[in-house]
């Protein structure tokens, strides 16, 4: 019943202005799954840095490796069949691989928390939501049952679940989708983590509820100055909140840039293709321009650039040599494409920009 008035921001702050302390550094992360059919190369040499207060959006379609990246950071990739390799995953300078399982557990949940796509299946159906939130305090803080319940109520109020005190004993199936996701958020934020990873937090929700949850996440992030990793397939959802964008395709990062740069001037053919294939509410009602073909099998990736079979800019080089992330002239981001310059000039020539 509340109307939030229009927000006018004169200056879109770039992430450079916003950076706080370095929280998370991921260097050269790869994850393989060994299956009967072959080795699934789910994530290949992904690196990034996350600062306090920063929102990093990892964008990609199904099978791009974005969720697995998050699981690897959390250290919850199911193994077997998963095999995680990384040069380092550092939290506040400490390489997580060096920690004992016990210390790693302290980081997990307390320092780096995570929420998942489907809040119904992600909550345990046989425990009340109060118990599940309270469990964080019971296990990590040694709180009594009563203290844990009180803390749970307080958190539920914080994430604006109405009548928290009455509902603390209810089970997940008694809540609506949006409320369940609030419960997940309350649980994740219970110990005031420095980093929150949100894996498609609104995909299972309706747009109006999505708007509520995104607003909540935004305000909580600001309040706690968290580093936030938002994983999504929807370029729209993160457009307003991301500071940095990392676009993934077939397990690898194909483009990485400040959000302003990315949305305005993305340089990878895949990014361009994605932008054009999104139906939009704004602008001319053009015919959509889809990316032809389908994503490759992660077991048998094409040689060279994984995007080459679908790429309109493809050259012979793309079919043999895998492009690495590099910077190109006139663009502040990094692109893994041999022909990024051509993509850029074609775009400028075609008069395209954002919102095409």
């Amino acid at each position, binding site marked *: 019943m509340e109307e939030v008035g229009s927000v006018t921001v004169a200056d879109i702050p770039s992430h450079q202005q916003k950076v706080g302390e370095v929280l998370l550094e991921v260097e050269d992360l790869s994850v393989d799954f060994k299956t*009967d059919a072959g080795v*699934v190369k*789910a994530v290949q040499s992904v690196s990034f840095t996350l600062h306090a207060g920063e929102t990093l959006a990892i964008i990609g379609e*199904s*099978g791009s490796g*974005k969720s697995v990246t998050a699981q690897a950071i959390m250290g919850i990739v*199911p193994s077997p*069949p998963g095999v995680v390799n990384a040069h380092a995953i550092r939290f506040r300078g400490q390489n997580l691989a060096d920690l004992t399982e016990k210390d790693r557990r302290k980081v997990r949940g307390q320092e780096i928390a995570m929420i998942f796509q489907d809040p119904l299946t992600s909550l345990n159906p046989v425990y009340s939501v109060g118990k599940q939130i309270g469990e964080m305090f019971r296990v990590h803080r040694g709180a009594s049952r009563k203290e844990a319940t009180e803390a749970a109520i307080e958190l539920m109020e914080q994430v604006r679940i109405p009548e928290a005190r009455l509902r603390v004993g209810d089970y997940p199936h008694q809540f609506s989708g949006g409320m369940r996701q609030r419960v997940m958020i309350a649980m994740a934020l219970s110990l005031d983590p420095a980093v929150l990873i949100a894996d498609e937090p609104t995909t299972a929700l309706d747009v109006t509820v999505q708007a509520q949850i995104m607003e909540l996440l935004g305000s909580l992030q600001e309040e706690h100055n968290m580093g936030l990793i938002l994983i999504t397939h929807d370029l729209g959802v993160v457009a307003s909140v991301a500071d940095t964008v990392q676009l993934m395709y077939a397990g690898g990062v194909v483009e990485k840039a400040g959000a302003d740069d990315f949305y305005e001037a993305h340089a990878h053919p895949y990014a361009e293709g994605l932008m054009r294939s999104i139906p939009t509410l704004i602008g001319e009602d053009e015919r959509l321009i889809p990316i032809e073909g389908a*994503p490759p099998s*992660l077991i048998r990736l094409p040689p060279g650039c994984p995007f080459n079979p679908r790429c309109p800019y493809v050259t012979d080089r793309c079919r043999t040599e895998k492009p690495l992330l590099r910077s190109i002239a006139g663009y502040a981001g990094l692109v893994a494409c041999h022909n990024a310059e051509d993509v850029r000039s074609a775009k400028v020539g075609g008069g395209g920009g954002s919102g095409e």
Partner: protein
Amino acid sequence: MSDSGREGPESSAEEAYREEHRFVDEAVGSKMTAVLAGDFEVVEKEAGLFSDAWKQVRRRKLFWFSAVLIGIFTLMAIAPALFTLPSPATHDPRECSLRNPETGEFQDLLQPSSEHWFGTDIQGCDYYARVVHGARVSIIIGIGGTLLLSFIGLIAGGTSGFYGGWTDNVISRIVDVLYAFPFIIAAILFLNLVAAETGRNAWHVLLVIGVFGWPTLSRIFRGAVLQAKEKEYVEAARALGASNNRILFRHVFPNAIAPALVFAMIGVGGIIGAEAALSFLGVGLQLPAISWGLMIANSQDRIATDPFLIFFPGLFLSLTVLGFLLLGDVVRDALDPRNR
């Protein structure tokens, strides 16, 4: 499963569990995504379920092991002479002599020897021949009983699940009654009714097993049908104007049959065990029929002195049951991707 007295409880729990886990759903739509956390578009293994299953089954040693076991015992049931031929004392199992043909001495219960591989029983019959001939009853009742109970169970479960309403209510209550009335007690009581004067034969046992044994399969199939009929492709067929029969036989039935099939396959072993158990209890086959259960029953007093009388029929019985059990297991693994 071999103690059929417990068939009821086992299966209803299993059924509850299947319902809980939407067995059919997953058996049919196999996503390995559970492990891979939904970040891959996994091409589903659905339709080629049976052909894929066959491919997978062929590669497994256990499958061939069970196939060989079943093959041997089936052959034994069809042509026992093939198996008794090489034995030096090959006889008709009913041609027994209490006297040594050479010395004329009175003899019974010979221990196993090179002449009588499995010894002789108290009547002086060659025990190997008897045990070999015991296969026929087991295989007939095992397969026949399964066919009969599957027939009843599929019809009952199919109508119950597909049509719902009062039909479902009535059938479900009958199933409840049969569950509450433990199979073995039912079998004991009714086999006593059947042909008490004329003596019972394999068909009587088969009939009672079929009539009282169908509820589990019916419930499994009902659940599978309920699942399958909610599928969108059924709605699609309806939208095309397909008749009920077409929907049932072309869309629902083929997609619901897998779990029932697996159950029936495993069930053969269970029924073979049940026949033996009933004969052992004295309510199954009666002398002069030849049945492993009867042989064991008639030898139970001699467990201390002549354990071989129990051992050999027990071994053959267990191996037959094992064969069907393993086959069912292998097929279930192949059809139910959760086990992969």
